[in-house]
């Protein structure tokens, strides 16, 4: 077989793998069904449960409280600590309990994102701890964790600039879409999948988290971000409704 024929065959194969629609028949800008509730844990100051498609996260907030250990105390602002954890049965292959490199990294990026939404200078010398437990994971667990943590912080009565929605936008082969599932993230055929989780502060029009896993052109990235921001606005609306419903129903 000549080199030309081989290249043609490869090109045909790539064409045959071309992804024309989403696996769960959603539109490119359509989110998975989202359920939110706050005040689910009575033993902490604030809590929230968020279900995005098959991904379920519970977040609990403790604090503001005295900083421990004392040498980590910040004289003029609040110290925020975020703990992200996958429950052993949350993924198909049992997750090893306890902290891992991944959970440490996610705790840090979530902390950096959430810190932008809190008035940290209003609580000097104190500490807030956020514990996020992923009960079931089907992609987008860091975004669901951010939504749950933001709601839990609001439920705890901590002063914030705004609620913070988050969503993953990205590309499956050539299709730019939002809120990718695990099956979509795992696509390797054609152009493969690109996953871009973002967190967004709507009132300040500010992206507070932006990660990228895969390959994407500049034009596609801008389009994906635009779709992500629009999706975040929808989630933000639902977050507000969740809080209002809690107090109006009583």
């Amino acid at each position, binding site marked *: 077989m000549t080199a030309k024929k081989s290249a043609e065959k490869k090109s045909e194969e790539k064409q045959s793998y071309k992804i024309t629609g989403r696996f769960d028949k959603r539109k490119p800008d359509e989110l998975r069904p989202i359920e939110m509730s706050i005040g689910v844990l009575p033993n902490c*100051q*604030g809590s929230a449960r968020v279900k995005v498609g098959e991904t379920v996260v519970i977040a609990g907030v403790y*604090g*503001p*409280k*005295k900083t421990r250990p004392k040498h980590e105390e910040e*004289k003029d602002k609040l110290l925020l600590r975020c703990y992200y954890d996958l429950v052993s049965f949350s993924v198909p292959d049992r997750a090893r309990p306890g902290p891992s490199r991944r959970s440490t990294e996610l705790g840090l990026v979530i902390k950096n994102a959430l810190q932008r*939404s809190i*008035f940290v200078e209003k*609580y*000097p*010398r*104190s*500490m807030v701890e956020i514990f996020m437990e992923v009960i079931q994971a089907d992609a987008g667990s860091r975004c669901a964790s951010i939504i749950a943590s933001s709601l839990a912080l*609001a*439920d*705890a*009565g*901590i*002063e*914030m*600039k*705004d*609620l913070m929605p988050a969503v993953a936008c990205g590309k499956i082969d050539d299709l730019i879409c939002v809120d990718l599932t695990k099956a979509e993230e795992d696509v390797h055929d054609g152009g493969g999948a690109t996953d871009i989780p973002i967190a967004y502060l*709507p*009132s*300040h029009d500010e992206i507070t988290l932006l990660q990228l896993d895969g390959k994407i052109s500049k034009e596609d990235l801008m389009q994906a971000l635009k779709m992500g921001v629009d999706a975040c606005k929808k989630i933000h609306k639902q*977050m*507000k409704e969740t*809080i*209002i419903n809690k*107090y*109006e129903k*009583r």
Partner: protein
Amino acid sequence: MKILAKEGQIMCPGEALASFEDTKDLEEAYESIEGAYIRGKELCASFVSKASIKDESIRLIGLKGIYMPFEGDYVIGRVIDVNSPYWYFVELNCPYEAGLHIREASNQYLDTERYGMIHYFNYGDVIFSKIQKVSDTLRIDLTMKENGLKKLEGGVLTSFNPSKFARVLGKNDSMINMIQEKTGTKIVVGMNGLAWISGKADNIKKAKEAIELIDSKGHIEGLTKDIEDMLKKGEKK
């Protein structure tokens, strides 16, 4: 000023309360409203609250909040350290510990070397005191030198959300007086979200339930009637 929020509206963090054309008016309004922040030409809520609008004046009633200490606040605290010379350290249901100097604990002189710090208060004691001073770095000094400030003995400590303090007391203390009368208990309420109840065990339970009801339904109108009904039910039993 253009008011954007409605009376009784539940405000989420970041929601606009009012917009201003004049920056001076905006800053004046910002200083008068607790729990608001300035964003551009708008005044926004910074925590989950209920908007109260009367005669062009806006107020935010917190639905959940954290107690931040202020000078002159009457608080209930628990003594957590008696080992430092001349100082008692007190936990106040807030992120900061308070200090009570032995000279502020009583009018009488105490020879600490002879009697020890535990002469007045011991570890775990509950005290009703007043915040004398709050420093810029939020160091809190307490005082017990005022009528009514004392060590609370023999009762039960219960907590409620500090933002519901006004509701627990009621207008001219009407709510707390009603609970005390109907349950036959004695209640001391701290502005830091702690209440101390003393009396018979059954009565304490009833009073505690009433305070829990205020905590959960404090933002709804007609609360007094709900509390009355709840306490009447208890009487029938």
